[in-house]
């Protein structure tokens, strides 16, 4: 085996070593969500030489992302890029020797089985909500894929690794998803860039241990850092003997939880899914909509600002998903969409 000098410093580290580095090169990792955590994790794992990265995100870039989402630039925002495509572009420049698969999609109970197939060696948490994490947990438990939970809010960081069948799982830890609005999010409580980097550091060292075959080096339990206060603590986790996911009952995979069909998505925006799988011809749609307002298409999506609703903006993806900005009202969003898409 020829050694790649690119990774020499990492392979020199005794915990990884040359055999560990070789294992990283053969590994497949999925990163779900490419916001603050996911972007920094993708950058870290691409540089570390993880052989294949599948990066998945549903959102388009916004100016408020740049403070902490380290893969993206002002130009990406000008280009109206979805995060998955902007991340793909950047990661290809960082490391052209690995495989990158980018997917612009919301991860739901309907598609997660396809998105996270059995051949993944690890799933990395870059999400921003408990429901998607419970869904990831179900799929990881079912397919016996290790995954690493990581959450950040303000300057507080939580992280722990989950080895299906061995350690307590995420459902053992939180039970059910809390009701919407009952916990802080980065949109409500803010988040510091340095806290994101610490969170990703904690999570990615676990990812490297798992992929390098050094699971014995994992230190189990919840790691909690309050970066502002300079406090780092570790708490024990306990398996829940009644945990459905540990007992082979995958409620979230079976569709438990909030309907993904229409929901609030950030501030003043609603996301709507088509009821079934759809394929939209963006070019034809752009031609149809152009007399009715400003249309900005790119290869991945179409943006439309209706002339008669100046504060509104529709983003339509080829799989039929839409984000309607300018309202918090689900039925208003649906009716706007019906007006312009006829669905």
């Amino acid at each position, binding site marked *: 085996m020829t050694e790649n000098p690119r990774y020499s410093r990492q392979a020199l580290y005794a915990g990884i070593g040359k055999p560990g580095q070789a294992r990283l090169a053969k590994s497949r990792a999925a990163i779900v*969500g490419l*916001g*603050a*955590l*996911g972007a920094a994790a993708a950058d870290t794992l691409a540089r570390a030489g993880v052989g294949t990265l599948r990066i998945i995100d549903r959102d388009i870039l916004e100016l408020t992302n740049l403070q902490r989402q380290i893969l993206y630039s002002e130009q990406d925002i000008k280009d109206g890029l979805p995060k998955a495509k902007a991340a793909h572009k950047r990661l290809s420049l960082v490391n052209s020797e690995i495989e990158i698969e980018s997917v612009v999609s919301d991860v739901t109970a309907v598609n997660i089985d396809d998105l996270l197939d059995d051949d993944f060696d690890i799933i990395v*948490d*870059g*999400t*921003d*909500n*408990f429901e998607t*994490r419970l869904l990831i947990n179900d799929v990881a438990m079912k397919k016996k894929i290790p995954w690493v939970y*990581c*959450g*950040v*809010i*303000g*300057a*507080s*960081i*939580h992280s722990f690794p989950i080895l299906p069948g061995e350690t307590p799982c995420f459902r053992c*830890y*939180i*039970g*059910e*998803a*809390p009701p919407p609005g*009952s*916990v*802080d*999010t*980065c*949109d409500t*409580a803010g*988040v510091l860039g340095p806290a994101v980097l610490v*969170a990703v550091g904690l999570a990615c060292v676990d990812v490297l241990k798992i992929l390098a075959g050094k699971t014995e080096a994992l230190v189990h*339990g*919840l790691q*909690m850092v*309050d970066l502002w*206060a300079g406090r780092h*603590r*570790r*708490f*024990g*986790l*306990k398996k*829940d003997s009644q945990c459905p996911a540990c007992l082979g009952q995958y409620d979230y995979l079976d569709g438990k939880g909030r309907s993904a069909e229409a929901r609030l998505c950030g501030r003043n925006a609603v996301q709507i899914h088509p009821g079934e799988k759809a394929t939209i011809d963006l070019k034809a749609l752009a031609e149809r909509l152009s007399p009715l307002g400003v249309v900005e298409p790119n290869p991945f999506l179409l943006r439309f600002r209706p002339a008669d609703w100046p504060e509104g903006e529709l983003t339509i993806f080829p799989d039929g998903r839409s984000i309607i900005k300018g309202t918090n009202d689900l039925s208003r969003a649906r009716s706007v969409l019906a007006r312009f898409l006829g669905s």
Partner: protein
Amino acid sequence: MSNVTVRIPTPLRSMTGGADEVTVSGATVKDALDALGAKHEGVLSKVLDAKGGVRSFVNVYLGSRNIKALGGLGAELKDGDVLAIVPAVAGGK
């Protein structure tokens, strides 16, 4: 009765006047949480559900051990113990 320190997570500090630690006394975890609730209105409902159990997405630790492993809210306290209220963190975007 034992004197214990309760560590307050960031999202609940608005209810403790900004304090990140509150000293209370009680014989059990339940006593200590009740005493915390008596001192600072509103905190208890963020930790316990309507049935009086710890909310599923909140964990309470006595030292570094989850109270679930120590008999739950009935776990006994001794002087100088540290209780930490830890709501799960959702953010990431």
